[in-house]
């Protein structure tokens, strides 16, 4: 199939698309916070819980030194973080293009084929086993290992905490999964090129960058969506090998168009019909990829004019006259990015992530209005949330369930510092049901907390907290308070707010029981911290 496309598109590719210029981030954003019933310390904890991956000693100190409003302003216009860049420079794969990743990290069987070895023969299988055993760091899985490590490092240690929260939010919004065959080689470039540069920019640019990225084109099949009746030049059919079977029917694939409407922009209840989905898919026919392996821009976005349906279309209120070519898709994205239903859909999701699972309708209305008024300026949209009284309302503090990622990284930031990400840390996210970059459905992970809470996941969270606090997660440098610290002080430090009386009583009772057994050990700080990390209160932020 791939070969078939390769030859077909070699003949009909147009000039490469001009990259969309990224809007420069404003130099500074003034943040002024509303009056709130929260104390200074509570405000800091709340800001770090929602706009960062939980409180860390270092970030608490920075906020104390510079003031919360200045810190928020810095977070909205993050500058460079040389310390972070330095730490990431040790990774080999983070800067690879899709073409380089495919070339340098082939599957073992592809590597053998390139060496002239039949990977199906007994000798080939033995050679493949040797490759896996002797050079595991050259296998495709290395791409995902490094990307996962980098994500955890950034979440735990970057000064640009809000950027990391937003990259996580928007990646999840425009989800792609490394589990879908070739996406594994594309997911790193996707986050680096399509998501990260745009999280403080305009929504239209973010949307366009995802629409044209090979990871999305591949994940939601748009690369193979062509106008009905499109036929490959007969001369190329001959080149199909036996094992590829007879040529398959080609035509429209609605997968991306449907998710574009349902998930990425206007939302499932916006009132579009199946006919709109089909028309949107027609508008996006020919939005594909450079599939010639030898080309330098292999696997980059290409508009294939011959595969495009150039008839007139009508999509969800938008008229597209015949003959627009690639502009069909561009105008469709313009239309959707500025639609009031999109503003509402995005404002709701953003408020669910940052404020409350059931965000106050008045807040959603204001955030959506800001989005529309500023033509989808995302920084202005975040500011509308952060400056709202609802964000700082005591009623919304400590009410969101931490996702596994927020729990794991939050726990690490609470007890110490992350020196390096080793396997056990990444593995715990798999156990907790949030394998990074491998969420299969296009919906991404849900924004409601009940999804994450099950009996099995709780036991895993409890055990992770105990292992972490007792120094059994390699790569994490644990720095605990002095051993005579009272339980209520420890609880306030770990939870970021005073613990309930029953929690303190329960933990103290557990300590007394232990003292009966071994009086020399005194108050066991690590044990108390472990119990607190696994407590129901720490599962909330």
């Amino acid at each position, binding site marked *: 199939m791939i070969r078939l496309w390769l030859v077909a598109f070699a003949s009909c590719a147009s000039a490469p698309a001009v990259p969309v210029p990224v809007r420069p981030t404003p130099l500074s954003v003034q943040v002024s916070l509303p009056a709130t019933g929260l104390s200074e310390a509570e405000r800091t904890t709340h800001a770090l819980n929602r706009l960062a991956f939980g409180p860390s000693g270092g970030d608490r100190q920075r906020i104390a030194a510079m003031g919360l409003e200045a810190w928020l302003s810095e977070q909205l216009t993050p500058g460079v973080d040389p310390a972070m860049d330095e730490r990431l420079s040790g990774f080999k794969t983070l800067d690879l293009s899709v073409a380089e990743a495919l070339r340098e990290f082939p599957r073992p069987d592809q590597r053998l084929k390139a060496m002239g070895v039949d990977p199906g023969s007994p000798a080939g299988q033995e050679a493949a086993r040797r490759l896996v055993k002797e050079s595991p760091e050259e296998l495709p899985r290395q791409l995902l290992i490094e990307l996962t490590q980098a994500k955890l490092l950034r979440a735990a240690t970057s000064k640009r905490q809000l950027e990391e929260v937003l990259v996580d939010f928007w990646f999840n919004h425009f989800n792609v999964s490394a589990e879908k065959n070739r996406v594994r080689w594309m997911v790193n470039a996707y986050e680096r090129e399509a998501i990260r540069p745009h999280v403080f920019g305009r929504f239209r640019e973010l949307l366009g960058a995802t629409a044209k990225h090979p990871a999305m084109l591949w994940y939601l099949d748009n690369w193979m969506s062509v106008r009905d009746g499109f036929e490959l030049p007969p001369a190329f059919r001959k080149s199909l090998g036996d094992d590829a079977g007879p040529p398959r029917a080609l035509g429209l694939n609605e997968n991306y168009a449907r998710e574009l409407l349902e998930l990425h922009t206007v939302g499932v209840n916006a009132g579009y019909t199946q006919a709109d989905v089909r028309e949107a898919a027609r508008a996006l026919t020919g939005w594909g990829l450079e599939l010639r392996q030898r080309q330098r821009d292999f696997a980059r976005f290409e508009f294939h004019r011959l595969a495009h349906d150039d008839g007139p279309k009508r999509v969800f209120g938008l008229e597209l006259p015949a003959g627009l070519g690639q502009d069909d898709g561009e105008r469709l994205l313009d239309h959707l990015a500025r639609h009031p239903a999109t503003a509402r859909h995005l404002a709701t999701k953003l408020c669910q992530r940052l404020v409350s699972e059931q965000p106050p309708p008045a807040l959603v209305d204001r955030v959506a209005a800001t989005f529309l008024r500023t033509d989808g300026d995302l920084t202005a949209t975040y500011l509308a949330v952060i400056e709202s009284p609802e964000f700082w309302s005591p009623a919304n503090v400590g009410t969101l369930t931490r996702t596994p990622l927020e729990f794991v990284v939050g726990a690490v930031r609470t007890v110490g510092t992350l020196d390096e990400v080793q396997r056990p840390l990444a593995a715990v996210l798999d*156990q907790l049901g949030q394998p990074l970059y491998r969420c299969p*459905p296009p919906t991404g992970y849900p924004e409601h907390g009940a999804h994450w809470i*099950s009996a*099995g996941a709780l036991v895993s969270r*409890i055990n992770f907290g105990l292992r972490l606090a007792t120094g059994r997660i390699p790569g994490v440098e644990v720095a605990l308070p002095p051993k005579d610290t009272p339980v209520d002080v420890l609880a306030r430090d770990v939870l970021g707010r005073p613990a309930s009386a029953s929690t303190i009583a329960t933990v103290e009772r557990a300590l007394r029981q232990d003292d009966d057994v071994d009086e020399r050990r005194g108050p066991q700080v690590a044990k108390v911290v472990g119990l607190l990390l696994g*407590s129901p209160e720490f599962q909330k932020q």
Partner: protein
Amino acid sequence: MISRRRLLQSLAVFGAAPVFAEPPRAKKTLVVVFLRGGVDGLAMAPPMGDRDYAALRTTTRVKGLRLDDTFGLHPAMAALLPLYASKQLAVVHATGLPVSPRSHFEAQDFLESGTPGRRAAEGWLNRAGRDLPKSAFSMVAVQNTLPVSLAGDSSALAFPSLRDFRVLGGDAAATTFEALYESAVDEALRTSGHEAFDFLERAKHEGLADRPAQHGAQWPKTALARRLQDITRLIHADVGLSIAATEAGGFDTHLGQGAETGQLANRLKEVADALAAFAQDLGPRLADVTLLTMTEFGRTAKENGTRGTDHGTASASLVLGGGVAGGRVLTRWPGLAASALRDGRDLEPTTDLRAVMSECLDSVGIRTRDVFPDFAPVKLGLFG
């Protein structure tokens, strides 16, 4: 507040029988084994009597143990022959979903959702478990994370093994966490905590993880066998297990698949030996159990250029249990002639796998209404 744990401990001291507020227990259990990667049904149950089979396969052609005039069983699965002979095992062939993409992840999601062509918010087993008594034991997955088939609103528990599913730090830590979660403000946390500690206490009290094999079963030392043994422990312990799921992988045999021996043969032997030990261990309790194997798709009818097979459509499923009208290969065999193959390359699914799944649910007394939306199963008669 006296926790159940402490109540249990004090009762144990006085030699009294433990008292539980028992939900009504399920008597019957459905066990679903998902074989991930796409099992080659034409190797697991080779259609030796199909005149086109030999021409399609060269290095991957299997000479099976005779099941009937058309089909054999892969010789690596010989351990299952006695169960076939005693009519407790049936093979369903040329089965799959009518819409089957060739991507693993989509095909698995569609099948585990029970909704061909789309992914549902809930898995088919979760929907099936809606009306089961609320208990930490009613739906269990013995694997690292909850599979899509069990995900959804009804609560289900996943753990990698009974032995490893515990709170570190021993009983004291567990007691503390139980008390912390009993007073949790958040309802989801309180409920899940209750289920978790309920399960852990029962598992510990009954020594579930250490229960020895029954009826002389010899369990092989494979991951699948360990998981299935944990499931038999739960069945023997009568803890109310209605639905259990587990999985095995390694069936994506694009390269060097092998025939009577080789890569696929090794995987199939693991499955067969584990299933045979499962039946042996259950002994008479097999009457209350149905076990179903499934896979996301079969493989291409024709061998590929690397001595393997590529992603196809229909495959074969095994159904094992006391109530099975077994000793047969149930199929509406479409044949392997070029004109009969889907897209000219795959075995056509002539039996909708949802009909098999429905009858398996039915066989353990679980209501199947609404489990498969927009689907009216035809009666296969798998259970006589």
